[in-house]
């Protein structure tokens, strides 16, 4: 298998082109929750993709920041998918989304306290034990100031990786969005980021909400990747070297060819070719 360069988030409407795609280094990412079914066309589609390309399972609902351990039924379903498609990467978010049996379809913030660190470390370890493999944990997008932080985010993530043995997923759009919204410097954040733990990078687009004073950036994944984010990516790759990089798009999804054009720019950077003009 050739090494992974740039991948794209898979959308079912692109199935035919995705199966036909033969570009070097391509891989595809899916949300495992959408494939946690007993059978039928969705699973058949995932099997066909797994035959053709390396896959990444990028979870959105494990709620690693919860005070409760991850749901064992959910972990069992995730394990079945992992065994089924043998993914190249498995990842989740530094966030919470479950409370006393209720699920909130979002990635919610929490105070980065030492108590929270212990919880997240334990939750990641339980996940890795259930899956029999290392996962990568993604830095979140921030919109509000949270009281009670005892750790900076980069230190928190570094310590999490150190204690649990997990890797990290660096979402550069999230860094840009959060730095703008919470008024800090994205470059300095990236300089502090424990890049040696990074197993995967995400690139995505965002939108501006002008109803909030100063303009809130929203991690909407529904536009092309901004030039500011590409510049930050360049800065990371120059320091970290090649890392599998995903072009994430979840809303206003363009054609497969358009996504592949955007993907090619990251691929050329990773493959050491001249950056496409």
């Amino acid at each position, binding site marked *: 298998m050739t090494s992974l360069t740039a991948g794209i988030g898979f959308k079912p409407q692109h199935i035919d082109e995705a199966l036909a795609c033969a570009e070097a280094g391509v891989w595809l990412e899916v949300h495992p929750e959408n494939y946690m079914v*007993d*059978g039928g066309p969705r699973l058949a589609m995932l099997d066909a993709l797994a035959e053709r390309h390396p896959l990444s399972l990028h979870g959105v609902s494990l709620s690693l920041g919860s005070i409760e351990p991850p749901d064992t039924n959910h972990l069992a379903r995730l394990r079945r998918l992992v065994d089924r498609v043998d993914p190249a990467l498995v990842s989740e978010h530094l966030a919470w989304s479950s409370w006393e049996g*209720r699920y909130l*379809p979002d990635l919610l913030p*929490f105070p980065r306290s030492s108590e929270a660190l212990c919880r997240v470390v334990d939750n990641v370890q339980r996940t890795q034990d259930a899956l029999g493999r290392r996962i990568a944990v993604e830095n979140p997008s921030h*919109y*509000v100031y949270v009281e009670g932080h005892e750790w900076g985010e980069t230190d928190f993530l570094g310590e999490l990786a150190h204690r649990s043995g997990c890797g990290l997923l660096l979402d550069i759009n999230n860094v840009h969005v959060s730095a703008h919204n919470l008024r800090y410097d994205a470059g300095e954040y990236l300089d502090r980021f424990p890049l040696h733990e990074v197993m995967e990078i995400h690139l995505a687009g965002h939108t501006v909400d002008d109803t909030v004073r100063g303009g809130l950036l929203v991690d909407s994944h529904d536009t092309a990747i901004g030039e500011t984010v590409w510049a930050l990516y360049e800065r990371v790759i120059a320091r970290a070297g090649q890392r599998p990089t995903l072009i994430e798009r979840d809303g206003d999804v363009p054609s497969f060819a358009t996504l592949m054009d955007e993907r090619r720019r990251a691929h050329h950077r990773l493959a050491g070719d001249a950056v496409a003009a």
Partner: protein
Amino acid sequence: MSDLACYQRRFLHALRDTESTFSSARQPAFDVYRNTTLRGCIDALEANYPAVACLVGRDWFRAAAAAYIEVSPPTDVRMLFYGDGFASFLDDAPQAAELPYLGDVARLDRLWTESQHAADDTPLPAAAWAMLGADELATMRVRPHASLRLFRAPRPAVTIWRASRDGRPVGDDLPWRAECAIVIRPHMNVTVLDVDPAALSLIQMCASGHSLGDAIVHTLDLYPDVAIDRILGGCQLAGVFALSPGEPSP
């Protein structure tokens, strides 16, 4: 309660309380979380109940969905299954009083989803039927295909559902009568087939573990004029039954 738990509990309450004094929620940007969590639920319901959404229009649907989410927020992270109780909610919703068939249309949307994601299964092949003698047929127990779902409604909900899924209006001459259907995915495509009450009765008997012979006798008691051969032929064609290896008959 731990500090982390306390923060999350207050966060959750603030999602619904726009007057919350919780520090994170006092910032205007907190609305991003209110909007995202609500929109995620509404979008999932809209995707899971396309016939209902088409019938009532976007604004009506999203208002009804928001009311449903208040009383039945998601508990399963698999949003493709969200809305288990939406049909019953619509049955009782005052705003749906003039659309008494809406709950049944939602029920059929739900059965479609269940069938779509059910375990893969192999329909009983025609050759297997053909090889069975009359005695064997009478005593055999046929297992329903894993994707089979049964539907009956006191109103023409199947016709309305089908028109809605196809994006066309129902005719003015629609007979206002009960309808029955089976929902099945013999291989990869879900189909909704109109059946008569006798066929539904026979399939239901078989599905609840009775022998084919008993199911036929019972069905003939209820519907003396029905042509059993025609029903069995239809079942075989639709792939209603699956025969497990090693359990041909008791």
